[in-house]
C-alpha cells in the first residue's frame, strides 16, 4: 500500500479531455482521388474519450478499469503525451515513464547490452545513469551472461524480463502501466509486484490499466471506471469493481 504523505500535491490533472478518432477507410492517394468529394462518407467519427476530468495526487496508485474499448488505454496514452486530446488538456509534473509495452524500442539485431542503453535513453535516462544501474538491471532481469547476445536469440521470457528490469530502474515520479505486470513466470511476477510495492513506499505515483479487477484491487488505493469514453465511477477500488461488473 502507498506511503502516507501529508498534504500530497497533485501531480496529474486532466481537464475536459476528449479524443475523437476519425476512421478513414481510404489511405492511399488513389483511393482519395477516387473518393474525392465524397470523402465524408468515408470517414467515421468515434469518441474514445468524452470529457474526462482527472486529478491524481502524488504517491497514490490509481487503477483505470473498463471493458474493452472503454477508452482506458487511450486515456493512459493521452496522459503520457503519446497522443494529443482533441479538446481539453493534461498537465503534469515530475519525471514520467510510460510502460505501455515492454521492450518498445528493442532492436532485435543489437545485443542485450546495447539495448539496455538504447531503451534506457528512450525512457529518459542519461548514459551515466544507465551505467550506474547497469549491473542492477542485469541482476534483476536474471539474464546473466546472455547480456552480450543479440536479443533476437532471447526467449520471450528473457526479453520481457530485461525490458521490465530497465523500466523499473528509470526512477520515475509517475509510472504509467498498461497490462504489463503479467510477464514472466510466477516467481518473476512476484518480484515485479514486490517492486511495485517498493515504488509505492517511495511515494511514486502509479496509474495502472488492467482488465484484472483482482490485480487492481491488490495494487491500487483508488480506481476510475470508464465506459464508452466516460467516467462512470471514481473512488474506492472495491466499489469500482462492482461498478465495472455493472457496466458490462
Amino acid at each position, binding site marked *: 500500500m*502507498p*506511503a*502516507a*504523505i*501529508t*498534504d*500530497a*500535491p497533485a*501531480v496529474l*490533472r486532466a481537464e475536459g479531455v476528449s479524443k475523437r*478518432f476519425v476512421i478513414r477507410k481510404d*489511405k*492511399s*492517394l488513389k483511393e*482519395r482521388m477516387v473518393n474525392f468529394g465524397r470523402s465524408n462518407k468515408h470517414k467515421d467519427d468515434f469518441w474514445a474519450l468524452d470529457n474526462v476530468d482527472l486529478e491524481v495526487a*502524488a*504517491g497514490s496508485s490509481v487503477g483505470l478499469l473498463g471493458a474493452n474499448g472503454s477508452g482506458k488505454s487511450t486515456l493512459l*496514452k*493521452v*496522459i*503520457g*503525451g*503519446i*497522443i*494529443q*486530446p482533441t479538446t481539453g*488538456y*493534461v*498537465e*503534469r*509534473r*515530475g519525471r514520467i515513464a*510510460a510502460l*505501455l*509495452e515492454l521492450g*518498445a*524500442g528493442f*532492436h532485435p*539485431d*543489437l545485443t542485450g547490452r*546495447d539495448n539496455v*542503453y*538504447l531503451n534506457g*535513453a*528512450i*525512457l529518459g535516462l*542519461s*548514459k551515466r545513469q544507465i551505467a550506474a*544501474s547497469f549491473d542492477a538491471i542485469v541482476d534483476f532481469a536474471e539474464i546473466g551472461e546472455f547480456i552480450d547476445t*543479440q536479443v533476437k536469440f532471447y526467449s520471450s521470457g528473457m526479453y520481457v524480463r530485461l525490458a521490465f528490469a530497465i523500466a523499473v530502474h528509470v*526512477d520515475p*515520479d509517475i509510472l504509467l502501466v498498461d497490462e504489463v505486470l503479467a510477464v514472466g513466470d510466477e516467481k518473476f511476477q512476484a518480484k515485479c509486484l514486490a517492486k511495485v510495492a*517498493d515504488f509505492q*513506499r*517511495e*511515494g*511514486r505515483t502509479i496509474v495502472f490499466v488492467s482488465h484484472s479487477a483482482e490485480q487492481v484491487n491488490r495494487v491500487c488505493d483508488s480506481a476510475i471506471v470508464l465506459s464508452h469514453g466516460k467516467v462512470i465511477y471514481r473512488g474506492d477500488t472495491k466499489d469500482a469493481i462492482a461498478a465495472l461488473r455493472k457496466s458490462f
Partner: protein
Amino acid sequence: MSTSAQERADRLRSLSFERTDARQRGFFRGFGHAVVEVFGQRELLNLLVRRELKAKYKDSTLGFIWTLVRPLTMLLIYFVFIGQILGAAHNVPNFAIFVYTGLTLWGLYSEVLISGTSSVIANAGLIRKVYLPREIFPLAATGSALINFAIQFGILLLAVLVTGQFRVSWDLFYVPAGALLALVWAVAFAVLFSSLNVYLRDIQYLVEVGMQILFWCSPIVYSWAQVVQTAKDHGVLWLAEVYLLNPISLAVLGFQRGMWAAGSETTQLGVNTIPPQPWPAHMALDMLIAIAVGLIFLAIAQRVFARLQGNFAQEI
C-alpha cells in the same frame, strides 16, 4: 535512488505543471521549444544513429565496407559508360573527380531525404508506445547519412590529394557552404515528408521517384558549362537561372567549385580546349540566401510536423 515519500512529494509540489499539448504555442516559440527538446535528447539521438549504423550491416562479413561499395559502383558506371562510352568525359576535365564530387553530395542529400521520409513509419513501434520528441527520427536518419557522407568525403579528399588536384584558395569555402546548403534543405524536406507520410503513404514512393528526376536535374553527371551552353544554343539563357533555383543544383556547384580545381582552369582535352566553368556571378551570396531560405523552410516544416504529430500514434 530511494527518496523518502514525503521528500518526493515536497519536491513535486515545488515544480510547476507542464502541459502535454504543444499546439498552442506560437510559430517561433514552438520551433524554439522543439529545438530545445531535441537538444535535450542528444544522447538518445546519438544512440539511435549508432543503432542504425550498427544494425545495418550486422552479421555481414564485410560489414561497413558495404557503405563504400554503392558510391564506388556508381562512380564506375558513370565514369565508364556515361564518361567514356557516351563521351561526357570529352568535355569535362578530370571527369572521375568531377562525377565523384557530385555523387558524394548527392548521396548525402538523397539519403537524408529518402531514409528521413520513411523514418517515422519505420519507428512506428516506438511512436505508438513512448513519448519522445518525434523530430528525433528524421534527425537520426540524418545522422547516419552524415556519417556515410563523411566516409565518402574522406575518399574524395584522398583522391583529390593523390591526383595533385588540391588547390588552397578561397574557393575551399564553397565546400562547407555546399554541404550545409544541401543538408538544411534535405532535413527540412525530411521533417516535412516524414510527417505527411504517416497520413499518405504514397509520399515515400513519390519521393523516391522525385529524387531520380532531381538527380538528372542537377549538374552531377554533366557540367554546368554544358547547361549554360545548351541554354544559350536554344536562346533561353534565363532557363539556366531557373535551373539554379533548385537548392541542390547550387549546392553541387559549390561543392564542385571547391573540390574540382580543374573546373576553374583552362584545360586541353585532346583536340578540345575547355575553358573554365562559367560559375554563376554571385555564387557565394546566392548560396547564403539559399541557406537562409532553407532555414526558414526548416522552421515551417517543423511547425507542420508539430501539428501533425499529435495524431501519429493512432494513424501509424
